[in-house]
């Protein structure tokens, strides 16, 4: 069997495992619908960021600063949500700030010929400090900010096998984004240009288009999606800002990208598995029967262990773009 087919098969097995876990958890008094609700919430930021990074990497760039974009856009999103008194506009502004950061990174990559991995790490460290500084500067309170419940984007109710499922419309948007990205990359002219910029940048140049512009565009799209994901965490999920809000999710999204071999749909499936692990952790922590048996510290490790385990079991077999991480210099 082709390695890629094998991967899809394994994904199916993963989903069966998820279903089995849901079934098993129902014995602890945990409703399957609750578990799926948690999983969908956890999936959202991961999926947005992973889909965005797929596009970005296809164009030949790598951004390990997703965690940093998450942090900054979370603050920006909440700030603007309070200004506009609307959670949705806050999410949008989070995306705008993400796109801005993505654009700056793109400029650095293209014109600065940056060491992209180091620049991404710089962004992460900048964001850790900036997050806490901004919290102090804007709300004059260290490390935490709670905003009115009314700003949280309301969830809608979807019927599923006789039960009501409360889902954030933003989660559905994240899933839609994955399909849109798939179509963009594979069915449009722009997608071909994007992929060419990652595989053989010279060819884009020869065809009369700017590699620079294509890459900056890809970086901005990636940043925008990551920004929406970052703003979703406070505005669609937690209802507040704390300094540990991202908890390594930017890197889990990166793991999903590595796993997917840059196919947005596979990335979406991977984020569902990772999101489920996280959702399970959250759900279990609030379930009395399990809480007594296992300290919550170990449950909190679950998403990270699952992420490493998935990457270890399924080493990346798909080829990544040839020019990934390499600056392009016009001759």
């Amino acid at each position, binding site marked *: 069997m082709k390695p890629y087919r094998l991967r899809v098969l394994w994904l199916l097995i993963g989903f069966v495992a998820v279903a089995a876990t849901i079934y098993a958890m129902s014995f602890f008094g945990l409703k399957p619908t609750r578990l799926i609700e948690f999983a969908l919430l956890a999936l959202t930021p991961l999926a947005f960021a992973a889909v965005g990074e797929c596009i970005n990497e296809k164009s030949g760039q790598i951004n390990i600063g997703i965690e940093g974009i998450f942090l900054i856009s979370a603050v920006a999103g909440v700030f603007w949500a309070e200004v506009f008194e609307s959670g949705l506009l806050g999410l949008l502004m989070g995306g705008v700030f993400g796109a801005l950061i993505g654009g700056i990174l793109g400029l650095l990559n293209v014109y600065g010929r940056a060491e992209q991995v180091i620049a991404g790490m710089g962004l992460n460290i900048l964001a850790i*400090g*900036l997050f806490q500084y901004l919290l102090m500067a804007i709300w004059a309170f260290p490390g935490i900010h709670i905003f009115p419940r009314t700003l949280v984007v309301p969830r809608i109710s979807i019927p599923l096998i006789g039960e009501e499922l409360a889902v954030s419309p933003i989660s559905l948007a994240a899933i839609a984004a994955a399909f849109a990205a798939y179509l963009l990359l594979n069915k449009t002219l722009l997608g071909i240009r994007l992929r060419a910029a990652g595989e053989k940048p010279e060819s884009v140049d020869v065809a009369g288009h700017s590699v620079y512009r294509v890459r900056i565009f890809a970086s901005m799209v990636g940043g925008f999606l990551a920004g929406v994901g970052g703003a979703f965490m406070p505005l669609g999920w937690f209802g507040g800002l704390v300094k540990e809000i991202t908890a*390594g999710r930017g890197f889990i999204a*990166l793991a999903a990208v590595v796993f997917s071999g840059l196919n947005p749909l596979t990335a979406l499936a991977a984020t569902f598995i990772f999101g489920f692990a996280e959702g399970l952790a959250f759900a279990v922590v609030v379930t009395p029967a399990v809480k007594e048996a296992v300290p919550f510290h170990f449950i909190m490790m679950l998403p990270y*262990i699952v992420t490493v385990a998935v990457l*270890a079991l399924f080493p990346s077999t798909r080829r990544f773009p040839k020019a990934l991480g390499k600056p392009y210099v016009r001759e």
Partner: protein
Amino acid sequence: MLAVAVGLVGGAALMAVYGYDFVKAYRALFLGAFGDFSGFLETLAFATPLIMTGLTFAIGMRSGLFNIGAEGQMYMGAIGAVFVGGMLNLPPIIHLIFATVFGMLAGAIWSLPAALLKISRGVHEVVSTIMLNWIAFWLVTYLITYHVADPARAERAVPAQETARYLVIGASLTTVFILVIAFSLIAYFLLWRTTLGYELRVVGHNQEAARYAGINISKTMMTSFFLGGLAAGLAGVSQVLGRPPHWTVFATMGNLINIGFEGIGVALVGRNHPIGIIFASIFYGGLLHGGRFMEFEAGVASEIVRAINGIIILALAIPAALDLVKKIFPRKNRGETG
């Protein structure tokens, strides 16, 4: 130096945006950090763990690995030091040595999963080390809460016993600083004066060439991770056995968090060279210590220091910026090294 200037200007801009007086802030920062002798000793105390976590990242970079797992390895080093230093009763000097070695090994062992996953399964170390950092975070908070909690104060682990503490030199600086400097010199010697170090650097420079030269790449990667883990472990040890007044770890790990990541900036400013890292750490230690004065006197959140560090790293990532400066100021920059 240029990148540092960019970072400081960026920090000033951030303060100006929110209406803080950045001249006053920086004045307070540098006077507090380097203005008097005890302030300088405190700066060195802040620099101590950074030298080690910086070295972790530098050793990785020298051998072609992006090892950002110093954070978790440092947690493990600290908890290792708490176990031996706080829980056991041993004669004075032996206790100190045993606790130090145990903590360092704990850090090194925590780096091995990332190394093995990289070698055998091709898992990229950026993802695996970050995941291990978080696993370490929860493991260590669990251990502190349930197994090594201080009976007198539940929010922290047992402090290191008198027999397992490094001597205080002055302010918060202890003799562990000397050990850290010695470790850096040994690392320098290992990397530049031995075959092992040479092989490590060849792998980092050009993996293909190294393979043709018959160098065992898996082995050098293991060595690189292990050495880095020892250094990060020592960083954790230094915060327990060598840092008054608490000599221990808090359950929130407030006194450890981010030391590993700050090491990345330190290593890059120090150009991934053990000696450069020492100076970069002292500079950054000054920012950290002085940041508290800045907060006190100008009301600026001291976390801005971290933002400055991030801007410095971003600036360092852009080789073209340096070219540009050289083009604009061809004569002025001839003598400087950037």
